[in-house]
């Protein structure tokens, strides 16, 4: 089976936050919960880079390791999902995650965290595919429809890639051959260096 993954091409991301909006709108994510966000480094300085970050659907995911109720699991295609009915909102996954992916809406009980919400790679949850319950708890299930996630689907500069890891890697590799990456990429030096 294919291994699904995200890749954000930092040479292309322009910090438009379209992915964040697409995800929030399309999945009806509550206020205060961000499944995806764009972080800009060296803002306003030469060498500024933006990257769109969400759940990285890690192999050997730390959140799965620390969950005291085993609410988080990984599908065969690598997508990490949470069962909101099992989750107790303890927050351990947030402490373990290197990417700040797990998010918690307030449940109202003395400010207790509600069930954890995070990027599903638009693959829903453990409930039956396309069921009303799944849609209500987790949002769209575009993977089951054979589509890429909302964020990657709407990315105007095609910076955010998602899907089969081999295909994503091929696309990115081709880009790097053409324009280079990191220090060698086209950018400031090509555009402004006068010599």
């Amino acid at each position: 089976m294919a291994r699904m993954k995200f890749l954000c091409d930092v040479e292309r991301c322009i910090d438009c936050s379209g992915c964040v909006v697409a995800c929030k709108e399309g999945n009806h994510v509550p206020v205060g919960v961000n499944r995806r966000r764009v972080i800009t480094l060296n803002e306003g300085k030469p060498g500024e880079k933006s990257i769109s970050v969400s759940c990285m659907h890690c192999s050997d995911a730390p959140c799965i390791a620390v969950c005291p109720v085993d609410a988080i699991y990984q599908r065969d295609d690598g997508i990490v999902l949470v069962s909101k009915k099992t989750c107790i909102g303890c927050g351990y996954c947030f402490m373990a995650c290197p990417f700040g992916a797990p998010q918690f809406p307030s449940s109202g009980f003395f400010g207790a965290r509600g069930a954890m919400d995070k990027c599903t790679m638009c693959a829903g949850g453990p409930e039956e595919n396309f069921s009303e319950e799944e849609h209500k708890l987790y949002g769209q299930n575009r993977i089951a429809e054979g589509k890429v996630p909302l964020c990657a689907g709407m990315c105007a500069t095609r910076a955010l890639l998602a899907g089969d890891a081999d295909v994503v890697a091929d696309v990115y590799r081709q880009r790097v051959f053409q324009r280079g990456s990191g220090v060698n990429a086209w950018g400031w030096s090509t555009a402004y260096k006068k010599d």
Partner: protein
Amino acid sequence: MQRRIVFVSLLTLVATGAAAAAVSAQDQFFLSPLTHSVSVYFNKLIGIIAGDWQGYGQLFTFLQGEWFATLFLAVIIVVPLVFLLHYLIVGAKHFDHDGEQILFFSRYARIVHFVAALSFSLLVITGLLMIFGAFFGGGIFIRSARYLHLVSAVVFVVPGLLMFFLWVRDMLPQLHDIKWMLIVGGYLSKKKKPVPAGKFNAGQKMYFWFATVGGAVMAYSGYLIWGFGASLDTVRVYAMVHNILGMGIVAFYLTHVYMSVFAIAGSLESMKTGYKPKEEVDILHSRYNYR
């Protein structure tokens, strides 16, 4: 003339220097971002979104993922097992409950202790439920345990503080406590020989400090974990402190329950009625001056 040459050459020198500096500054302006390696960017990014993950995040993941539940399981199996062996081999201590009685706990102390016992037991039970949440399948049951953990913690703060001020003078360590510890309170022999202890023995003193000062640490760390009331790294540290200290407290809690319910037959009565048999006080609290 000579002065003018010197002046001109100096001026040229300064000008070239400035130009060179400007050029290098310009170079830096254009080149320095390019020298940023991917790992520099990555470290910056991780610092923004996950704090010092390599330090505390990884340690927390390792301990919570591999050790905490296992160690708690060891505590709740090994400690009662040791006591079971003690009960079978050495057995309970019996004292004459029909003879002279001594007022040991005032009504106030008993009420405070009762509220503390109730909330503390709930804390231990709900805490353990969460730690073994996977075994119970999570969901509403364990979520309720988490809510009850908060409620009992808030309740425990009151008797916890009152108990601290009520008994703190009797609980200060004394020299004879070392002797008590060396003979393990006389619990390893069946003989009724007076053991060196005041109103409270060294074991009770240890439990007292674990429950009050340790309880304060648990309350504060729990409060921060509950609401993520500090930076992510601080919360990680407090989550580890909460778990590790919790193990000690659970061990002492089990000990306290065993001692009061099983090891000294009928000693639970003193917390209900306030009276202990004179014989029991003379032996287990031989240095207590009740007259």
